[in-house]
């Protein structure tokens, strides 16, 4: 039965153009048509089952695979107001800090209904998933994925809460050498995986530092996230600094930057993987000291 319904859906989809599909959806106001203005918003909408309602998005919304087919109406620098007006979405979901605020103000002035996404923590992801699910008419599905996410988060937190802290350095960028501090997104990963960040208390969330400041911290672990899209990322050359314990013991981790830095449900998998890798370093250090 499932197979038949799937084939039927595919048949309908193939005979209906994207625009016609949008018109059908537009007539059903419990399932509003949406313009989603950031990759993480698109991803969340697909997670709650509202992916088909998206009629426009910005560049770099590349996950899941179907998202690549959504028409683009701008990028993080500028939106094409004319295209937004033409598409007539019932709802625009924007990223408060990542979208051009003047364009959003203009759209609001033109009478569009805009709601904002601004996740700062893992807890925010769950609450935004619930909110978007409710607005787009997928409350049940939203509740399901959000609860699953929260339960998995609690489990990871519990798993590592009693572990001994190890000192780690997070290399966000190599030139200039840039790390993270309190108030930044990656700092949460360090907190949960029990990594002590020597630069946590710096005033700016993404401080630039020099190797001279890293040396006295005697870091036991270096985290160097790498993006899949960057084929040849120029990472900091730690081999020259074997005085640093992490370098001497070859404890340099290279997690997937894309999964870690995008504020979606997928970030939890990245958290789980990172904590597990860090735990291996922890065991290695404990064995070495014993």
């Amino acid at each position: 039965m499932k197979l038949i319904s799937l084939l039927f859906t595919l048949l309908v989809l193939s005979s209906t153009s994207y625009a016609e599909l949008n018109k059908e959806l537009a007539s059903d106001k419990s399932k509003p048509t949406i313009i989603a203005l950031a990759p993480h918003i698109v991803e969340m909408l697909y997670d709650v089952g509202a992916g088909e309602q998206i009629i426009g998005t910005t560049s770099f919304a590349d996950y899941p695979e179907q998202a690549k087919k959504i028409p683009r109406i701008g990028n993080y620098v500028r939106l094409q107001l004319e295209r937004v007006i033409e598409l007539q979405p019932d709802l625009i979901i924007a990223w408060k800090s990542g979208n051009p605020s003047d364009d959003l103000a203009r759209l609001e002035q033109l009478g569009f209904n805009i709601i904002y996404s601004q996740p700062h923590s893992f807890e925010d992801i769950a609450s935004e998933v619930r909110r978007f699910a409710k607005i787009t008419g997928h409350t049940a599905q939203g509740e399901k994925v959000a609860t699953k996410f929260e339960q998995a988060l609690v489990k990871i937190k519990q798993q590592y809460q009693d572990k001994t802290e190890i000192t780690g350095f997070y290399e966000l960028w190599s030139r200039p050498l840039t790390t993270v501090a309190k108030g930044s997104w990656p700092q949460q990963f360090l907190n949960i995986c029990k990594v002590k960040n020597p630069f946590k208390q710096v005033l700016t969330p993404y401080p630039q530092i020099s190797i001279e400041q890293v040396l006295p911290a005697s870091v036991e672990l270096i985290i160097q996230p790498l993006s899949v899209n960057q084929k040849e990322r120029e990472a900091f050359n730690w081999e020259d600094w074997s005085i640093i314990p992490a370098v001497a013991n070859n404890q340099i981790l290279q997690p997937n930057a894309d999964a870690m830095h995008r504020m979606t449900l997928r970030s939890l998998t990245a958290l789980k993987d990172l904590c597990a890798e860090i735990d291996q370093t922890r065991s290695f250090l404990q064995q070495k000291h014993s």
Partner: protein
Amino acid sequence: MNKVSTRLFALAILVILSVLAAITFGPADIDSSQLISCLVGSCQNQIADIVIWQVRIPRVLVALVAGMGLAIAGAILQNTTRNPLADPYLFGIVSGAGLGATIANISLADNLTIALPLAAFLGALFSVIIVVFIAKVLQRMEQLLLAGVAVSFMLASITQFILYFGEPFATNRVIFWLMGSLARVEMSNFYVIASILVIAIITVLALHRQIDALLLGDESAASLGVDVDKLRLLMLGICAALTATIVAYCGGIGFVGLMIPHIVRQLIGVTTLKLIIGSALIGAIFLIWVDVIARSSLPHAEIPIGIITSALGSIFFLFIMYRSRANT
């Protein structure tokens, strides 16, 4: 009609045609019959009506007055300082506006619609006041440009310092804002820029003979009864108000003020009257078409307008340098 008048007349016709033609360009799919029916007020399609009247027409009209304003400001400065490289942006106006925009972005993020242009305007005005003050203290108005460059660097460094300690996304917003764009404009912006432009043009045209006297040198102008410092200060004030208003609404649109007057000198003439009228017309045509490129050359995005003007401007600038080398 002499040659210059014929050329100015032809340019004026070209401005009108450019305005009409530019309305037909844009990412929204609107055919010519729809366009015409919307323009004459019998629009069937509500979406086309909003796109034309609330997006395209304000944009083209702001391009018209911003192009005029920037070109005129450059022309006035070049003639009053007798420096072919004078440009309103060299007085730190963009750096000042950038500082204002940064402060607005960091501290008033919830009210950016009003706060951003206002802060940018105040920042731009602040930079001009410092520049004039320094030149006054030095007792040498001809050093205005050098003082402007120094102030520009100083304000840029303060901006960078604030951004470094501020919210990381504010840096993006400010940098992109400084690249300039006409995408955010609305009809009220056009009215504000147009009224300052009218005041500027009337004042300059009324004083065009005195400004011409300045071209002969400060001593010659003074001997003809011109209060050199006062006139220069007044002209600087007009340029500052004009440029600061345009920058506040449109961000940084570089090089228009520098390049357009040089084209006008080749085509129309060097005296103030011809230069101002010519700059207004060619500046308007230039910016209208640059904005058309900005909004319709990429399929899914816009190109910030400042990138195009600066790219064209810098090539033009090198061309002038090459020509002046060939002439000597």
